[in-house]
């Protein structure tokens, strides 16, 4: 069985051997795997910090660690998870691997820049890790001034440098994707024949390119202010801290869409494949990705409702924030409409897709609460906000990321994973996630503030539920790490198209050859055309 699995043909994994062939590779698929391993390490590191937070919060007293240590824990959890896991997660791994294949290209437009962007992430991560092991940082992932520039006695500068460098990694990935989508499509691959995953990554790339530089320059100013003790953002010296918040959220609100848009792209693929129907309202889903990217830049002020931002600006930002709900809802309605009368199969990736739709809907709808000026004053900086963005980031992005990994794993490695274990862990993650974060909505509404390591006794039951959920969630995340590793050696051979899916990535070998195709395909049908696949498989 295993010997029969040996591939006759050379593929991207066998095309070179040794560490050097990986560290100097220009193959987008190998670079995607480099990213995959890197961000997996960061994910589990961020998870360790999350565990420390949940352990501390089991009891109302601050007994496990001091408040200073607790501040460092949630800060490092946030920085690692946002900048070194979520932002690169889907685009840099699945996008890097599949975007060129899905549009019928041999590689991205700039393979060397692609490799450079991985090195930048690693170097940036190195700075962040150095800061952590040298003593940590306690500003919160938002680096709010003047605390970060004047008062914090922790490793703010090293962390800021790390995030700055990682930002350029993200910019270069986005630049590469935009040029590739515009100029590298195969003959016949028109814009409205592209898979929705490509559309989503294209929209994401626009945000990366337009937003990230503003974060970079903001960090330059923070760096200058902290290193030289000048007062650009310090009111005591004539500066304005709200200006920092504007600059920061100009990037960091759209960054939420950098994290979730590619996830939506994955879900479009999964829903179509496992209901064996073309995506309902294809062009609306494609356009809604662009709409989210654009509207996402007009709403950042809703993070500043309780700052000294003028109430009139608050009204404008509040009003505009509701508009993000429209393209998001278009996606959810079209996904559910795709399921209607579909031939639905409950494979593991589809379980994650269902999880995504439910959890993202909750996360999105609670976002509307937060967009409304009056209600937001009540729940600002409470666990309600924490629960909201974890429903979007974890319930949305990570569910989609795991769904995508389960979907494309046979293509990336040529092997199948054990189905029963995979379904079990999908269920554990869904249950563990809800147990962790649903109580936090209630906690927040009752008034539990974020970023405190001690709390009144009446909150304990809900906090214990949340911590219990976190341990269930941890098991759910560890299981895939084990069975994916197992499948590399012992998994059954997958074949080129195990799901009967459409898309150019399923028309090449598993794993694909170095330049993806023996011959560049000519595309003569629309996306998600199952009649052609059925003819092939028959």
């Amino acid at each position, binding site marked *: 069985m295993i010997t029969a699995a040996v591939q006759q043909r050379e593929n991207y994994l066998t095309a070179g051997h040794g560490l050097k062939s990986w560290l100097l590779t220009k193959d987008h698929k190998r670079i995607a795997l480099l990213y995959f391993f890197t961000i997996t390490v960061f994910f589990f590191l961020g998870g360790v910090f999350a565990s420390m937070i949940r352990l501390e919060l089991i009891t109302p007293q601050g007994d496990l660690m001091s408040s200073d240590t607790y501040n460092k824990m949630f800060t490092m959890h946030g920085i690692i998870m946002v900048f070194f896991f979520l932002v690169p997660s889907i685009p840099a791994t699945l996008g890097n691997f599949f975007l060129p294949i899905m549009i019928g290209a041999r590689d991205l437009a700039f393979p060397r820049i692609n490799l450079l962007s991985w090195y930048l992430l690693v170097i940036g991560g190195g700075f962040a890790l150095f800061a952590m092991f040298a003593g940590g940082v306690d500003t919160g992932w938002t680096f709010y001034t003047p605390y970060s520039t004047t008062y914090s006695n922790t490793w703010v500068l090293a962390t800021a440098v790390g995030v700055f460098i990682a930002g350029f990694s993200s910019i270069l990935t986005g630049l590469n994707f935009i040029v590739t989508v515009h100029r590298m499509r195969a003959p016949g691959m028109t814009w409205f024949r592209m898979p929705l995953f490509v559309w989503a990554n294209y929209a994401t790339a626009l945000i990366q390119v337009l937003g990230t530089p503003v974060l970079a320059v903001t960090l330059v100013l923070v760096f200058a202010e902290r290193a030289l003790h000048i007062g650009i953002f310090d009111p005591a010296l004539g500066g304005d801290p709200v200006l920092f918040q504007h600059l920061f959220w100009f990037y960091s609100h759209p960054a939420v869409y950098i994290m979730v848009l590619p996830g939506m792209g994955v879900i479009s693929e999964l829903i179509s494949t496992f209901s064996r129907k073309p995506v309902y309202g294809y062009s609306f889903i494609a356009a809604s990705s662009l709409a989210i990217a654009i509207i996402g830049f007009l709403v950042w002020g809703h993070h500043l409702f309780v700052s000294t*931002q003028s109430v009139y*600006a608050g009204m404008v930002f509040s009003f505009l924030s509701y508009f993000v709900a429209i393209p998001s809802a278009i996606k959810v309605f079209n996904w559910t409409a795709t399921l209607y009368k579909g031939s639905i199969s409950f494979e593991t990736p589809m379980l994650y897709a269902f999880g995504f739709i439910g959890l993202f809907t909750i996360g999105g709808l609670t976002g509307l609460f937060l967009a409304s000026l009056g209600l937001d004053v009540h729940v600002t900086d409470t666990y309600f906000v924490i629960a909201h963005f974890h429903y979007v980031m974890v319930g949305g992005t990570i569910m989609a990321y795991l769904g995508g990994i389960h979907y494309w794993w046979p293509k990336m490695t040529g092997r199948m994973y054990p189905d029963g274990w995979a379904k079990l862990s999908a269920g554990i993650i869904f249950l563990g996630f809800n147990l962790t974060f649903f109580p936090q909505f209630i906690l927040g509404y009752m008034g539990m503030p974020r970023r405190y390591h001690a709390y009144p006794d009446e909150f304990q039951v809900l906090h214990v539920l949340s911590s219990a959920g976190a341990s269930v969630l941890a098991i759910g995340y560890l299981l895939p790490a084990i069975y994916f590793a197992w499948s590399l050696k012992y998994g059954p051979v997958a074949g080129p198209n195990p799901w009967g899916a459409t898309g150019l990535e399923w028309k090449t070998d598993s794993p694909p050859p170095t330049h993806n195709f023996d011959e560049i395909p000519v595309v003569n049908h629309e996306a998600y055309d199952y009649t052609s696949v059925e003819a092939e498989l028959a």
Partner: protein
Amino acid sequence: MTSATPHMDSVKTYITVFLALIVATVLTTAVAFVDLGAFSVVVALAIAICKMLLVALFFMHVRHSTRLTQVVLFGGILWFGILMGMTLIDFSSRNWIGVPGR
């Protein structure tokens, strides 16, 4: 226009544009010494934008670029406008209601 090289203008055009840029520099410096009140910044920015357009359209050949390049350039300027405009909505409407700190 050969396919492998971008379109070029004549040396005469480049020299004319260059001289226009020098004149604009002298002009913007001179006009800064005149008291125009609030208009001095408007004039300074107007001259700078003209200079930018000269450099972009002629030296960077945006005149002959593909439509896509022009869209990219326009998009970049638009997004800078969003950053400035939406932030200025806040800073320009502070203290309208007379409550300190709002």
